[in-house]
């Protein structure tokens, strides 16, 4: 087996153990534990964004909008019909994922920059919809006192155990990506990312695979949205606006798109910043902007992508004799 894969797998397992252990370590410090919980939600989101952005090559800026649809729907189901979170969350997420597919349909023929523009328009419309349907969303004021999910015994999920549930979902989300990528479906995604015309000539149904990808990425967005709403306890249209989409995109691009570990690294490094720099709100947005420029210009592959590239270069330099071109056979 390729040692690089072994490394990535070991790193993944180490990160998973760390994620599941940290809630216990941070139990005494509510602030840090909360930051940890937010990081876990963002790891889940970044893994989902990476499926479409990193593997299919489409940048979905309506990501936060889908998360918002699921969050509002979940709250509506629990408040108006008395559903349990554990029933409302999957139902709302599934519905939001289907809406994600529908919203993706018009952009099926677009790729690259044009897809991104289209998704930006969709995100903007969704943000406006959250404001203009106050019956469901309470408009700009937002919804507060969102009940946390209930625990097995009916008590509300809180503290250590809520953090642990978030960690489990984050680990499961990343693990699902790691499982998916080497499968035939994952390989088709990569082929579409590299060259969709060639992929079609090689027998890959580009439209169908893109729809599957839209569904999966929307599902990640939606599940994360439901947890975000119950964990923070308050949502407003601002929580699910285009800046949120861009932030999640930045986690993926900064960490390393098209790798499993990269988006996790990105989320772990960048997601805590707004909480740790609460006194410097203006500076936070400046930092985001600077990071976007730096990533685009200096680290097009992200931190982890750059690491892999350097490692490959070193390996190639270490063995200059092999890999010469095949001499013509006579």
């Amino acid at each position, binding site marked *: 087996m390729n040692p690089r894969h072994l490394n990535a797998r070991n790193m993944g397992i180490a990160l998973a153990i760390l994620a599941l252990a940290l809630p216990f370590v941070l139990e005494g410090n509510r602030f840090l534990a909360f930051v940890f919980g937010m990081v876990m939600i963002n790891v889940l989101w970044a893994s989902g964004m990476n499926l479409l952005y990193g593997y299919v090559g489409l940048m979905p800026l309506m990501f936060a909008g889908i998360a918002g649809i699921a969050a509002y729907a979940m709250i509506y189901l629990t408040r108006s019909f008395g559903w349990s979170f554990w029933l409302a969350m999957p139902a709302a997420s599934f519905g939001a994922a289907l809406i994600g597919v529908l919203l993706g349909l018009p952009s099926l023929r677009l790729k690259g920059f044009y897809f991104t523009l289209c998704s930006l328009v969709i995100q903007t419309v969704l943000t406006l919809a959250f404001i203009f349907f106050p019956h469901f969303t309470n408009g700009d004021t937002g919804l507060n006192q969102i009940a946390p999910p209930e625990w097995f015994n009916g008590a509300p999920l809180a503290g250590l155990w809520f953090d642990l549930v978030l960690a489990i979902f984050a680990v499961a989300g990343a693990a699902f990506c790691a499982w998916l990528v080497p499968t*035939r479906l994952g*390989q*088709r995604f*990569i*082929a579409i990312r*590299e*060259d969709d*015309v*060639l*992929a*079609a*000539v*090689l*027998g*890959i*149904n*580009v439209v169908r695979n893109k729809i599957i990808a839209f569904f999966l990425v929307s599902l990640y967005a939606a599940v994360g949205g439901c947890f975000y709403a119950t964990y923070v306890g308050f949502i407003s249209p601002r929580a699910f606006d285009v800046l949120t989409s861009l932030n999640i995109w930045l986690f993926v691009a900064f960490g390393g798109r098209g790798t499993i570990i990269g988006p996790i690294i990105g989320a772990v490094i960048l997601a805590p910043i707004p909480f740790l720099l609460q006194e410097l709100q203006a500076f936070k947005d400046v930092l985001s902007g600077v990071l976007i420029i730096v990533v685009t210009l200096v680290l097009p592959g992200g931190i982890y992508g750059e690491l892999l590239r350097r490692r490959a270069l070193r390996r190639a330099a270490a063995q200059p004799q092999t*890999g*010469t*071109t*095949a001499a*013509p*056979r006579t």
Partner: protein
Amino acid sequence: MSLLEVSALSKHFGGVIALKNVDVQMRAGETLGMIGPNGSGKTTFVNIVSGQLRADSGGMRFDGHDTLGRQPHELARLGLTRSYQAVRVFAGLSVQKNIDTACLLLAGEGLARAQLQELTEWLRLDLALDKSAGGLTLFEQRRLELLMRLAQRPKLIMLDEPVGGLAVTEVREMILLLQQLKARCSIFVIEHTMRVIRELADRVVVLMAGEKIADGPPAEILRDQRVIEHYLGTVHA
């Protein structure tokens, strides 16, 4: 029964007529060449037959299926594939990954490992498997393109200028490879290099401004007065 049967195919782009009532028939095992001046509709013809463009009118049958309006991925499944004038491989992936992607189509019923190995050695890509496909020479990329198509066990492969851009010695090698390819599947080939047509094709179709003006064995076609005048170029020379 013919493998490919195209009847009265027409296509226009705005006011430009790209193809006008073109009939082409091909038997299984045959190598059919298509020649014509630039802009005569050759690539448009391949684009339509391979499902990348829609025809305005006409009929198309491949291997007993009505294929007019079918998508490229459906045609790949039926065994009709193509290459590109500007070579097209997954430049960002390794040669091995390129081949693996091509093998996704048939999965279990695909080539056995030994057959794939044989193809790889025949096309002399066995030492380049770990390299990035984007870093290969043009000739290597053309061979990889062929390998990826053959891994899908096509019945018909449509080659759009397979020796375009190759050096003289490489052209000779490519013709040799294509001659051996004839034993593996039916070939439809667009070419400007007359040597390729002469040495490869069993039959040649000549397009001129979207219309078929001749159809026959290469020796006969290359002597045809109209072809010489309009295409091989004695009129203005």
